[in-house]
């Protein structure tokens, strides 16, 4: 998705925020960009291409996910089938929300992102793979890029751990803090 500053109002438009569940948001992902007013698909939009339809890795430009704190944006991407997002930078709250929902946001340098866009254009059926254990992004043409994730998030995502359980291991410290 060759765009910068993709905001959460685009990822999941506000008319779909009224559900009280975490599921079922994928059908509304990028709704106003994907569909015309009459509900027909806009063929030029990235998700309506052959690769976009079955995509699990989304590559975009800087400051992806800016705007609202709505976790619905991460839910919609996950529900649609995206597992990995790659961009030069992400908005802060959105970045956190991704990890809570099993979506891996990967930050790469601008020139590395450029490489991905370039290769995607040159190769038919281009595929990118992200290896969380090795912290590497690879493709089927020999590209291999390293990425960083902080160790606690890496650990939680890899083992599917629940943040609340982990925090409650320190419950005595919370109680001590409150008793101060």
């Amino acid at each position, binding site marked *: 998705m060759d765009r910068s*500053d993709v905001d959460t109002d685009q990822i999941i438009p506000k008319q779909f925020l009224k559900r009280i569940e975490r599921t079922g948001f994928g059908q509304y992902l990028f709704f106003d960009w994907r569909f015309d007013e009459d509900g027909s698909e806009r063929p030029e939009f990235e998700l309506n291409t052959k690769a976009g339809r079955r995509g699990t890795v989304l590559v975009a430009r800087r400051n992806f996910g800016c705007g609202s704190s709505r976790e619905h944006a991460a839910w919609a991407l996950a529900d649609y089938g995206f597992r990995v997002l790659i961009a030069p930078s992400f908005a*802060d709250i959105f970045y956190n929300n991704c990890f809570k929902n099993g979506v891996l946001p990967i930050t790469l340098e601008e020139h590395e992102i450029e490489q991905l866009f370039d290769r995607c254009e040159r190769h038919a059926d281009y595929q990118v793979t992200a290896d969380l254990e090795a912290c590497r992004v690879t493709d089927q043409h020999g590209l291999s890029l390293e990425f960083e994730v902080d160790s606690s998030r890496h650990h939680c995502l890899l083992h599917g751990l629940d943040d609340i359980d982990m*925090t409650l291991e320190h419950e005595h*410290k919370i109680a001590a803090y409150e008793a101060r």
Partner: protein
Amino acid sequence: MSPAARSARTLFEKIWAAHLVHHEEGRQTILYIDRHLVHEVTSPQAFEGLRLAGRRVRRPDLTTATCDHNVPTTDRQLPIADPIARQQVDTLRRNCQEFDIQFFDLNDPRQGIVHVIGPELGLTQPGMTIVCGDSHTSTHGAFGALAFGIGTSEVEHVLATQTLLQQRPKTLELRVDGQLGPGVTAKDVVLYLIGRLTTSGGAGFVVEYTGDVIRRLTMEQRMTVCNMTIEAGARAGMIGPDQTTYDYLRGRPFAPKDFDAAVARWEQLPTDPEARYDRSRVFSGADVVPQVTWGTNPSQVVSVNESVPDPDGLSDEADRKTAVRALEYMGLVPGTPMCDIEVDRVFIGSCTNSRIEDLRAAAAVVRGYRRLDRVNAMVVPGSGLVKQQAESEGIDRVFRDAGFEWRDAGCSMCLGMNPDQLAPHERCASTSNRNFEGRQGRRGRTHLVSPAMAAAAAIDGHFVDIRQWNYR
């Protein structure tokens, strides 16, 4: 480095250190949360998570809820017409009953936009950590609190543990020296700063606003500035507490009982003179003139006496593409003077600009005039209490006499989750905080301005330089 400099700390550092519950190298820090504000849109899944895991709310006494995002701003005596919005509000009401949380319901005069009622009730206090499932929680930083928006999983985390897992951010000082010219408002200051920082310039930082311009702002004006900090990518914006802060808080319902003792504590909070920020940027108040956005993010902004910029003048290719796309969406041609742009709608409201001083400023412009017939103008007070105050001052009459609609409190057309929305291609002068595509209604076109500038646009039908306004 002198001993004083070594022990010197910023406002942020003091609050961070005072709220550390647990810290391990290489792990996220567990930070205690003093105040948790809850609203209907980002909380239902969090409460459901608690129920599924058999957890309780750890500190209902530190948790406060209201409904604001999708509530109607008319016909409050009727049930909410939209069944899904009604379900969200009903769900929040039930959750608050079940978990024993104070809830300001639709018929309570204290109901309102969560970032308006927190401060006006005195729930927001210096030195606190404050969170809410809403990015504009940065508003509360105006009191010298560390306040930021969180996602729904984090809402659940705070409900269950009264703490959050956090990565320590860096500090960025934005200093605005000198003074503002006449007609230049806090909204113009923050739009100007976002224009210079870009939408991601604050990423990874907590901003502290300093300088004479900031010191002279009222509490409500400081809230406007801190509110939009998130639009520059920084999660939180803060301003050191001072006499202005204490005077505002004294006597508020939830202010500390022993107020003088609280003030003595709060006076320890401001950044020490020798403390260092990770980064500092300095601006001059004299350079700020009334601002109008032209694009689809808040950093795409110019002074009202300038013209729609030409994307070809931008050196960065990504910025250029974004600008081209924005101009196409906004239906604008480069070189058009901002004052020649006609508007169809005017929205005065939102957590940025719906407080009593905002309404007074807009009413002063409107007094003695009438809106242009083809312009629809709407005023949505930030809370029931703001509405009451405005009505006691006769401000509602000024607006009504000028043909403006006078509504009930809520987020309203800032994000168009309720029936208040733009029609496709309608152009709106809005006092809100985001001009994203479709934000106020599908294909709607939003220009962000101050309350006075929005009011003037309703009278003249196009943007005007408020510095030349003829007040009646």
